[in-house]
């Protein structure tokens, strides 16, 4: 038996990038592994879920969960982790805010299934086969998880103690969070383990921002050769920096790509998309309604810009997971 703190790392609906960023701690991960007892990490270690089920409640000191909750399997595992863990860390934009898959909340589940299994041009499915939660094959019943109506952030399903945003969170922040956990220096429950400033505050181009940004034309980043020294907004390129939490190390800005908002909202902001829209509107320089409409039309996929990572927690979309959605709980 070991007296090391037990840590579990779980992925729900995610791309694997969050697990990859833990690996990207590189050789420092060896120190972490020496300091804790990893009891679950599906992407790297061969522990099974029933090992977790057999553990006592609260036996895991830290449960790190990445990915959003979209189906009954995700919800079941999230609840199991909550039961067995003292501290739950929502890891990455999907767990914290729903992430890019959350944009699927603009469509119904039926619409998504119809497109994916029938209507998409690359699909050939004359029999209209569509996955079912239960299927009988050779007298045996096979089951699949139930897909929910919408994508949920982790805290819409279970109680979350800490948030580490980012798509994915950068390795240095991961290490900082794990170190804080090991040294018992975690902040108050509910905190985000990233900067409290807005990205604009730490952006290397901040000094180039004019006192008043006047946008007369909105351009997409691939349509222009952006000046790598000037504020994107002053160049008419939408950058989510004013409404996004800092801490990413400005990795996108440094390769001349505007901020897309993966670190989510700043403290005390209910809906960062709506707040950014306010700011963007004040920068638009149009004298009349026609000019305003013209610039407005230049913003392609407004909702995709504003809520690229956060639609499930936005004012219009925030929905706690209803218990009746989880059929496996019955």
């Amino acid at each position, binding site marked *: 038996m070991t007296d090391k703190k037990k840590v579990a790392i779980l992925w729900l609906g995610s791309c694997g990038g969050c697990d990859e960023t833990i690996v990207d701690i590189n050789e420092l991960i060896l120190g972490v592994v020496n300091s804790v007892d990893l009891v679950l990490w599906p992407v790297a270690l061969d522990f099974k879920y029933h090992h977790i089920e057999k553990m006592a409640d609260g036996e895991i000191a830290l449960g790190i969960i990445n990915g959003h909750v979209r189906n009954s399997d995700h919800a079941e595992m999230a609840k199991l982790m909550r039961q067995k863990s003292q501290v739950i860390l929502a890891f990455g934009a999907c767990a914290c805010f729903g992430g890019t898959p959350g944009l699927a909340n603009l*469509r119904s589940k039926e*619409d998504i299934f119809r497109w994916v299994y029938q209507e998409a041009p690359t699909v050939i499915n004359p029999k209209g086969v569509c996955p079912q939660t239960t299927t009988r094959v050779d007298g045996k019943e096979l089951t699949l998880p139930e897909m929910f*109506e919408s994508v949920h952030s982790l805290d819409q399903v279970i109680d979350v103690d800490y948030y580490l945003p980012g798509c994915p969170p950068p390795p240095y922040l991961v290490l900082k969070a794990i170190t804080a956990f090991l040294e018992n220096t975690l902040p108050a429950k509910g905190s985000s383990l990233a900067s409290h400033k807005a990205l604009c505050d730490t952006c290397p181009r901040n000094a180039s921002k004019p006192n008043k940004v006047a946008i007369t034309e909105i351009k997409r980043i691939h349509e222009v050769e952006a000046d790598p020294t000037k504020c994107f907004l002053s160049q008419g390129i939408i950058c989510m920096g004013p409404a996004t939490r800092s801490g990413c190390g400005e990795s996108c800005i440094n390769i001349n790509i505007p901020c897309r908002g993966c670190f989510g909202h700043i403290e005390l902001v209910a*809906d960062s*998309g709506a707040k950014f829209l*306010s700011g963007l509107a004040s920068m638009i320089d149009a004298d009349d309604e026609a000019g*305003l409409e013209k610039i*407005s039309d230049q913003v392609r996929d407004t909702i995709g810009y504003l809520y690229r990572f956060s639609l499930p927690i*936005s*004012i219009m979309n925030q929905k706690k997971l209803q218990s009746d959605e989880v059929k496996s709980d019955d």
Partner: protein
Amino acid sequence: MKEKEPKIVCFSCRFSWGYLVSEEDIAARLENWIPIICTGKIDPVHILTAFRQGAEGVLILGCPEGDCHYQDGNIEARKRITLLYNVLQSYGIERERLKLHLGADPEGKTMPQLVKEMADTVRKLGPRSGDTPTQKKSATRTK
């Protein structure tokens, strides 16, 4: 059976709308009325929250163009609203459900009529799908 009146949330600037009468007087005639000091104070958060809480339409009454008490708050509001239309459309909320009306009525006599006109417009659109924007089918797929 009498048709239920659509729920309209009305924000109005106190510098142009009903400043000669008491707030109680207007509130007695208008349900869901929110007096504000400038339409430039209205954030998209407030409008989205109104829709989230079940508003069928949102009417914003601001000062006449060129006559804003705070210089250009009403123009700022117009910019926000124009950008917000795109967001509402994605949620399946028609742009007619959000209207900015610039004008002045110190006694606020026309306010109930403007709300009624908004209600008529909204009634023609039919009911909103409540708080489940994900269920709306109005978004069109681009192939």
